[in-house]
């Protein structure tokens, strides 16, 4: 998983937990709506999907970071010493 699954689970649960009563208080859903307990579960799924997908931030890895920075690797240094 490329993102942050723990953050996704906690934030998703809390997001759904707040969203249900908020929709009720703004008059969007009735109090007995099943969404009151479905939304926190959907929030957990949403958080996990976001963590799995990880659409934000740059793709970083050691190799690509070195290639982008133009720095030599230890292997390159050894080859230079041998020459």
């Amino acid at each position, binding site marked *: 998983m490329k993102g942050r699954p723990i953050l996704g689970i906690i934030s998703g649960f809390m997001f759904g937990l707040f969203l249900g009563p*908020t929709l009720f*208080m703004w008059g969007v859903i*009735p*109090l007995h*709506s099943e969404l*009151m307990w479905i939304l926190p579960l959907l*929030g957990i799924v949403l*958080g996990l999907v*976001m963590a799995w997908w990880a659409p*934000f931030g740059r793709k970083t890895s050691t190799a690509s970071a070195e290639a982008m920075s133009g720095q030599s690797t230890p292997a390159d240094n050894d080859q230079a010493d041998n020459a």
Partner: protein
Amino acid sequence: MFRRKRLAAFGVLGGTVTLMVASLAAPASAEVIQSGCSGSATFSNGVTVTESTPLSEVFEVPDKDDNVMYTGMINLPPADEPEPFSGDVSVRLPLGQSWVAANWPVPPGETESVSDSGTYSYEVPGFVPRGTGGLEVTAFHQQRGVTCEVAVSLALAGSPGPAALVGTAGTIVFGLGVGAAGSRRRFT
């Protein structure tokens, strides 16, 4: 490429919330759950609900203390001698729970009559949010083997106040947390 992915992510988040809200329309259902009675309740703001009031209609009732004029009759011939009866008015909550606002008979007893009318006073605690979505209020009565259950949708007049703002703020904060869960971890 990244911009397209971010836009898609926001699209998924927005689409999920839109779907959640769009799926909220409650299915039309009968207001008389179990027949065998008739009744009405009139609030001080002129709102009157009866057993034939559609459940899909939400009526605003006074948010402060109010006196409700009510009538109720169960479709039975008058009894010759006192018989047991019971009933209540409850508010439907999530997960199949309910909160009983009033019940009868108080004190316990028996009756010969099959109808009643009068005035009922209610008080709404200050912490209950106003101007919200519908509260499904169910009236239930049982007597001589006949059961009657009628439901109406009511909402307290007024604006939701700080509770709704706190809820909105929490939703936004944790929504951002969900977005942050979608940011890539840095590997070293």
